[in-house]
């Protein structure tokens, strides 16, 4: 044999043998057999095959813990309390945990491997979350970068409260080799149980939004998981001060149409502040004005932050926070019922609105929001 080949071939041979040994050991040492997951003190008991992350193991049993990164440990959404001892937190978990959460044994379900019997605690609402098969009934451009997508559910009906969200299951496409899930607030009314409508804004570089804007077609089958979330109208007489921008319109569209349809919370006045940059970014204006005309307790304030002179915009101008501040000081009636804040948008927008609301006397415990992030 050529002596030059001896070295590389020897190394390759040793590597192959080592890989085989590792594979064989892995098969025996990592075979955890069947284990039991006890949820909420035995309220639910699952017999599962050990060895996989808790998040996927629960999903296989139709218990869907919210997750936006497919279990890569980068979204921090799949927090759950592990009552059993599963060892210290991994370095991949700690960036998402407060000291209090670490002390309470909160873990990321995607980072906990099911190796032995586990006791965990989950919010009971998660038990009613389902995966729905659907197909895309209609896609409509509402602005140059926001699509309204209507999904028709193929297998059953969805029960949800206006303000809640679903996770859209985006299948692999192009360079994306695995399915990913992203959360979107539902813009449809709860009474439309066979349909789910979402407003999806194109995020430059965004995997799910790029898929929806460039690949998703009418008639296509797609899965949705939900409903999730705590954002909803609170049963008080206080006036709702609602603020949104862009696709943050979604939960409010659902809330307003549902309240108008059902007549729920009749004491509540509703003020809706919606901000966009130019009139090209503004949408549903005619529909909302029509609603305002026939529904006296609904007040719409649409504002543009950077209108050009040729747009001939007649409405309010400025950042939505400045417009909100102005209206709270001069126009929105102050009475005994008080005000509540409802916000949907980016964390920056939420934080800025919270500051304006607090400055105008709305206490933080009465400001409810659905942060995109």
């Amino acid at each position, binding site marked *: 044999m050529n002596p030059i080949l001896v070295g590389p071939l020897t190394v390759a041979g040793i590597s192959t043998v080592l890989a085989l040994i590792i594979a064989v050991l892995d098969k025996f040492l990592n075979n955890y057999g069947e284990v039991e997951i006890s949820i909420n003190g035995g309220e639910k008991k699952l017999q599962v095959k050990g060895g996989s992350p808790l998040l996927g193991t629960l999903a296989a049993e139709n218990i869907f813990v919210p997750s*936006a*990164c*497919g279990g*890569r440990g*980068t*979204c*921090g*959404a799949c927090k759950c309390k592990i009552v059993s001892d599963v060892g210290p937190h991994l370095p*991949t978990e700690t*960036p*998402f945990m407060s000291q209090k959460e670490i002390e309470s044994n909160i873990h990321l379900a995607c980072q906990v491997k099911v190796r032995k019997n586990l006791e965990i605690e989950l919010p009971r609402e998660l038990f009613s979350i389902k995966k729905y098969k659907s197909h895309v009934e209609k896609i409509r451009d509402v602005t*140059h*970068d926001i699509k309204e997508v209507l999904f028709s559910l193929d297998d059953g009906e969805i029960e949800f409260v206006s303000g809640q969200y679903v996770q859209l299951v985006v299948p692999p496409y192009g*360079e*994306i*080799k*695995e399915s*990913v899930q992203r*959360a979107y607030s539902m813009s449809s009314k709860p009474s439309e149980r066979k349909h789910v409508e979402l407003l999806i804004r194109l*995020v*430059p*570089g*965004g*995997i799910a939004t*790029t898929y929806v804007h460039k690949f998703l077609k009418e008639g296509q089958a797609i899965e949705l998981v939900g409903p999730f979330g705590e954002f909803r109208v609170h049963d008080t007489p206080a006036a709702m001060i609602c603020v949104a*921008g*862009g696709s*943050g319109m979604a939960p409010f569209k659902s809330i307003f149409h549902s309240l108008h349809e059902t007549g729920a919370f009749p004491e509540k006045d509703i003020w809706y502040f919606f*901000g*966009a*940059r130019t009139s090209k*970014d503004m949408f549903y204006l005619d529909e909302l004005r029509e609603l305002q005309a026939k529904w006296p307790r609904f007040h719409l304030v649409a504002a543009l*932050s*950077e209108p050009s002179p040729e747009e001939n915009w007649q409405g309010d101008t400025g*950042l*939505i*926070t400045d417009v909100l501040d102005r209206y709270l000081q001069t126009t929105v009636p102050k009475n005994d019922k008080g005000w509540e804040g409802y916000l949907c*948008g*980016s*964390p*920056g*927008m939420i934080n*800025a609105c919270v500051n304006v609301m607090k400055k105008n006397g709305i206490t933080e415990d009465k400001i409810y929001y659905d942060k*995109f*992030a």
Partner: protein
Amino acid sequence: MKQSPADKQAFQKMIPGVITAAGFLGDDDRSPERIIEEDGIFFDELRLDFDAVSDKLEELQHRGEAGLGEPITVGKLLVQSGDARGMLPCPWSDGFFHKNAVSVRPADVPIESCVEGEDMLIYSELSVHMLRVHHFCQGRGSPFRLEPALIKRLLF
């Protein structure tokens, strides 16, 4: 360029599905060390400095945040600073970075006509860190690639 163990480990994390679903290499068939080497040459040729570019990108991100999620005009540029849920680790394991996406494009070009990577820069806090510390612009075809020629054209 000889590959250090840290680089080798980092490069393994750049493929799709490890840290992000899309990874950091796009459809570039060059090795990551080759990408770093060749982009370093482009930076020199274009008289760009990694720290100065990173500073400028961070400045635009912060100015974009004033738009509260909507695009905002900054000089001749339109900047949109958006957020996503969670944090991303650097492939070189030297930090966690808030998930976000900042887009920068000429204010006079409508977004419909913008081609990602040709007219519009998209970056995150992690992108800026990798540029500043590791001189890594990401592979061609990665949506978050910081193309040196585009940086020069848009920012300097």
